């Protein structure tokens, strides 16, 4: 009987453990994902609540009203169609067609769910409508509209501009976009999916912009790689296909720095093979690839590194940003911002502050570090290489004379597309203008030809606004 009782005590631990696990699991999932559930399109309750509260306004970082409620309770948006369209994926729309726009994802503030309980009850008993908080976003409506203007007309893609020191998002655009004041049947059934936010939810191979990650892994794992000479024969031959450089160029004997600035596929393919899958994957993981992103202000799809047990061919293609790599433009912008910010990756933020009807600040921006993928030295070397790519490499078209701009282009091949996707990531290496950007244009051609000039224009816009 004594032994029996001892065993019974173990059973108690197990079952009580399971019951407490319920509480812990429930608490953790509600705190980390509760707001995502609450503001999702599945929550019909949110729609009911819109009749019980007068939602607050949405302002941009300069205080310009992007969305507000008029006296009749109708939601109105910015008077200029260009600004409306440029900000629509961040702000959202009346019907919640955009999955996680501020209109739904910040409902907690806008609809006054954060109002103290007692006041909610009092308002209900008096039959008054609750007043929601006004929300100030970090984006700039005017800058967004100008960026939309320089983006190739009629193309799909995305642009992200963020402050790499604080993580504030200055502009986040997805193309094609739509006018929230004029949602037609054609827009709803457009196969190009204008409601979908390509900046945060489009997962794709980032092409050569990923060489930043391969380079980081090389700097970390290969001693003396900067002095070493590499040999580009113009081709790596795999049985089923061949990896070549753009325009069949043969670089010959080349340093790491030149290979990066010329975006030499052969050298980076060989580097990936030499590093091996494990090391490259570890560096990718350090940049957040494969992480479960649970940012407080926006929903970003999780990026992924290809699965294990792969052939050399797949590994080499991963090293140049192809194969089954899947990243969002938002995440590529975060990678660029980590290089710019001495190796520290900041959490992207959209909410500058929320203010209630009495002018009391209910929420404030708190910069938050996501990861620290690089040391300062590594970040400086990569910045230097990226600077070189702008001055005399593939990214020359993004250059703005007289400014310290760093960047990397990419041209990603995607099955079933005639042209490559054009990518550009970069940043302004200047303490007072701390912006990192990512430009992605689908199905148009090379990154150096299409994305880099767009990036150059965006940099000019950013300088003008300082």
């Amino acid at each position, binding site marked *: 009987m004594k032994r*029996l009782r001892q*065993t019974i005590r173990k*059973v*108690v631990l197990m*079952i*009580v453990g399971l019951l407490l696990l319920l509480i812990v699991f429930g608490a953790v999932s509600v705190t980390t994902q509760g707001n995502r559930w609450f503001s999702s399109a599945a929550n019909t309750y949110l729609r009911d609540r819109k009749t019980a509260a007068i939602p607050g306004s949405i302002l941009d970082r300069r205080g310009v009203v992007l969305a507000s409620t008029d006296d009749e309770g109708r939601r109105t948006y910015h008077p200029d169609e260009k600004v409306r369209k440029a900000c629509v994926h961040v702000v959202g729309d009346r019907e919640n067609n955009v999955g996680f726009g501020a209109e739904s994802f910040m409902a907690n503030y806008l609809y006054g769910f954060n109002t103290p309980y007692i006041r909610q009850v009092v308002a209900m008993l008096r039959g008054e409508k609750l007043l929601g908080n006004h929300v100030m976003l970090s984006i700039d409506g005017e800058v967004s509209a100008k960026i939309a203007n320089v983006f190739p007309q009629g193309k799909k893609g995305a642009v992200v501009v963020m402050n790499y020191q604080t993580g504030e998002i200055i502009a986040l655009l997805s193309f094609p976009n739509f006018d929230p004041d004029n949602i037609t049947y054609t827009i709803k059934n457009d196969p190009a999916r204008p409601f979908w936010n390509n900046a945060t939810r489009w997962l794709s191979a980032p092409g050569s912009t990923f060489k930043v990650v391969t380079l980081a892994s090389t700097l970390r794992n290969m001693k003396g790689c900067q002095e070493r000479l590499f040999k580009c024969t113009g081709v790596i031959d795999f049985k089923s296909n061949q990896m070549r450089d753009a325009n069949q160029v043969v670089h010959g004997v080349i340093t790491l720095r030149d290979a990066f600035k010329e975006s030499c596929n052969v050298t980076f393919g060989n580097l990936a093979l030499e590093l091996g899958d494990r090391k490259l994957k570890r560096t990718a993981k350090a940049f957040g690839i494969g992480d479960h992103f649970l940012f407080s202000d926006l929903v970003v799809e999780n990026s992924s590194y290809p699965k294990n047990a792969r052939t050399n061919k797949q590994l080499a293609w991963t090293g140049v940003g192809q194969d089954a790599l899947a990243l969002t433009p938002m995440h590529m912008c975060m990678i660029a911002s980590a290089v710019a910010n001495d190796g520290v990756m900041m959490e992207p933020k959209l909410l500058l502050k929320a203010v209630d009807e009495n002018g009391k600040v209910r929420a404030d921006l708190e910069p938050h570090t996501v990861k620290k993928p690089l040391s300062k030295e590594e970040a400086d070397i990569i910045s230097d290489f990226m600077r070189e790519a702008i001055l005399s490499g593939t990214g020359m078209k993004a250059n703005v004379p007289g400014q310290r701009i760093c960047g990397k282009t990419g041209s990603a091949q995607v099955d079933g597309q005639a042209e490559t996707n054009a990518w550009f990531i970069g940043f302004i290496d200047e303490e007072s203008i701390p912006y990192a950007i990512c430009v992605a244009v689908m199905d148009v051609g090379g990154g150096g030809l299409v994305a880099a000039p767009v990036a150059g224009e965006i940099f000019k816009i950013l300088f003008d606004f300082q």
Partner: protein
Amino acid sequence: MDNKHKRSNHSLVATITLFIVSCFVLLLLKELTLQSVMMLALVPGGFYFLSTFIPQKFSVDGLLLTLVNFLCCIGIIVLYRMNPQYGVNQAINFLAGFLAMILCMLGIRYIEAFKLFRIPFTMACIAVMLAPVLIGKEIHGAKAWLTLGRFSVQPSELVKVGLVLVNGYLLSKRKLLVSITFSAIMLLLLLLQKDMGTALLYYAVALMMMYVSTGSLSFFLAGVVGATGTVVVGYQLLKRIGFAHLSRRVTAWLSPWHTYQDEGYQTVQSLLAIVNGGLFGLGLGAGNASNIPVREADSIFPFMVNEFGMIFGVCLILIYTVIFVRGIGIALRARQKFFSLIALGCSVFIGFQVFVIIGGNINLIPITGVTLPFISYGGTSLLSSLCIVGVLQGVEWVNRTQMALDARMAYCRED
């Protein structure tokens, strides 16, 4: 000391009675009918009477009884709020279940008779479990129901006590192999009924009882690993041969938000009900969880959290934990292996069932059609849960009788 204990329990009973009264007053304000006035009078009164009178008459665990009555009354309140007819039915079910509980208590007190009927009893258990496989009716994808005229009965609920008694008897006689065979037959019949949740429950209870009686950790681990392996392999096989509702539930578990309009609907609506409720809930009668499927049975937990709040949900889980620990206390105090084992089996039944259903509601594990003990709507479910408590209380009665006897003998010796 005993007297003091009784008094503290009394204040608990009074507080709960007040809670029940205020709930019914709230419901009455919403809709003033003769029925709601009667419920306001009868439910709190009944609770007070049953929670104070029974511990006086029988020597049983008063706290355990009070908490169980409390949960049953909460169930009646919530069901009455959903649909007054459900509440009235559940109140009647509760009374019937309470009687069954007392019968079980008496049955355990005079258990000697059971040993005479053990073989017919075992056969009856198997026969009852076999019935739905042959002539059952399919509800929510599981073929676990029998219809007798106007009533539907779920035999797997009724046989719970049987499983515990038969296994307890066999294991106390060290007939491990017979016990394994009996449990395996039960499990097989449950799988044929396509009732995965209950099968998991039966497996856990039988495994725990065997683990405790043998004391062998490797036996237990083998059982856990074997079950996990069987589930993984079996799932791949069964997916191909017509357990469609099973594979749908797994999809719903892994990615409920991607399938929130079909497979994931129940899970997503449950999670939404919980976050919409917030910490303090929207208030009884003011909730918005009317979209959750089977909210009177499987999904009653999220429905309650929606109206009473997350803090209440946590308290509810803690109340179940206390009930489980009290049951284990009874098992630890028992003098004979048989009593100890059946008390353990009963406690695990309650504790693990709570884990399986609430875990399903909050998407920790795939959702199954198991009920929340004492609260979910349904006569059979409530009856079986109360019978399980009856068995526990019966063992406690035996324990206390024996302890009183010991005390008297020690007194005589000192004399």
